[in-house]
């Protein structure tokens, strides 16, 4: 998928604000307006701009490519259906991310309730290397997977955004509709849990 998109901080805007567009390209707000006026195909631009970010975040959360693509698809279709309720059209990317975030956390809670195995890390694409490297990778993956599985969906999301995706608390607050203080608390609790679970690993 072509990816002219970034969710990284834009000048004067912050993360998740809008796609970085070439001058000739339509802005997010223009695309939203066109879609609402009946140009369905214009929505394709938003899928291209934000598909990678949405899929990548879903994959980090659920660890399964199949489930991540399903969640990204559901978020994008729901975004289309609810597009007229997006109040800040210049920040439609953040709005789509919030939809994905809620779907993903609901999915994880449902997965817990139905006792579906959390053992999904092995479904990620393998990297190169010989059998020894593969064995070591498998051990590392197993430890990290088990530790992450102990976190609540909110803690896992906050930890991933902060420490894996490298977002600031202010960026996270802008897209998750939560205060910086509450997000810090989630990250702190996630780190405390991981510290205990992975003490010997460190």
């Amino acid at each position, binding site marked *: 998928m072509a990816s002219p998109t970034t969710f990284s901080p834009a000048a004067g805007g912050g993360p998740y604000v809008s796609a970085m567009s070439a001058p000739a390209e339509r802005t997010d707000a223009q695309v939203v307006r066109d879609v609402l006026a*009946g140009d369905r195909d214009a929505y394709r631009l938003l899928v291209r701009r934000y598909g990678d970010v949405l899929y990548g975040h879903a994959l980090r959360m659920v660890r399964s490519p199949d489930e991540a693509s399903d969640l990204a698809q559901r978020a994008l279709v729901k975004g289309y259906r609810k597009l007229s309720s997006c*109040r800040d059209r210049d920040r439609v990317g953040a709005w789509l991310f919030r939809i994905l975030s809620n779907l993903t956390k609901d999915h994880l809670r449902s997965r817990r309730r139905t006792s579906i195995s959390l053992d999904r890390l092995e479904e990620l694409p393998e990297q190169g290397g010989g059998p020894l490297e593969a064995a070591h990778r498998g051990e590392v993956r197993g430890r990290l997977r088990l530790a992450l599985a102990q976190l609540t969906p909110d803690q896992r999301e906050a930890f991933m955004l902060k420490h894996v995706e490298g977002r600031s608390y202010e960026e996270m607050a802008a897209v998750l509709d939560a205060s910086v203080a509450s997000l810090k608390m989630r990250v702190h609790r996630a780190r405390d849990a991981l510290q205990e679970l992975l003490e010997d690993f460190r």
Partner: protein
Amino acid sequence: MNDELRRHLDGDLPMDSLGDEARGEAEAWERLLDAFRVETPAVQAPPWLESKVMAEIEALPEPGIIQRIFAWLVSPRPVRISPIAIGLATAALLAVLLIPGRGFLPGSHALEEGPGLAVPAGLPGGEGAVVYVQFTLEAPGASSVAVAGDFDSWEGSYALSDPDGDGVWSGRFPVKPGLHAYMFLVDGSTWMTDPRADRYAEDGFGNRNAILAVTVPTA
């Protein structure tokens, strides 16, 4: 975890300001976080995601022409106005509004129903004229209620109040004459359609906006 290390991991304290013990802990944390990053690299969406999303969207029922026109009408867009055009438009508007017995728009939802409505000083319907409209919503248990519509770019900037705590939230706000779509925003995140509106408009995407017709009262 001590406060110094916590602040460092939060990005509030640089590594070189840590003491020896905290620095060792911070380095151990960096190794652990690197392991997480290596195991969860940035990835691209599968190439078929776009086609699957668009196919599902194409299969949805198409919004009707009226719904599309309404969506177009209420969507914000840049407008270029020249001084000559403003002068001509104002003259035309005044000519229409000053005809005795003529309203600007059919219907008078807010003016007839809202108590204590008032028109600010100035000619009725003149340039900048607004009408104060009473919005009311029963929302017991809510911690905040706001009204959002095309009149405030859907910002939810008009906050209702419930001073006596009976769960009935209300507020009076200036709205320009015309046809407006609006909804209530409860607790900052839940959108509610006004159950007492006279008119509604489906927008074709699963949402139902209340419609407010604001007219200028005749003398």
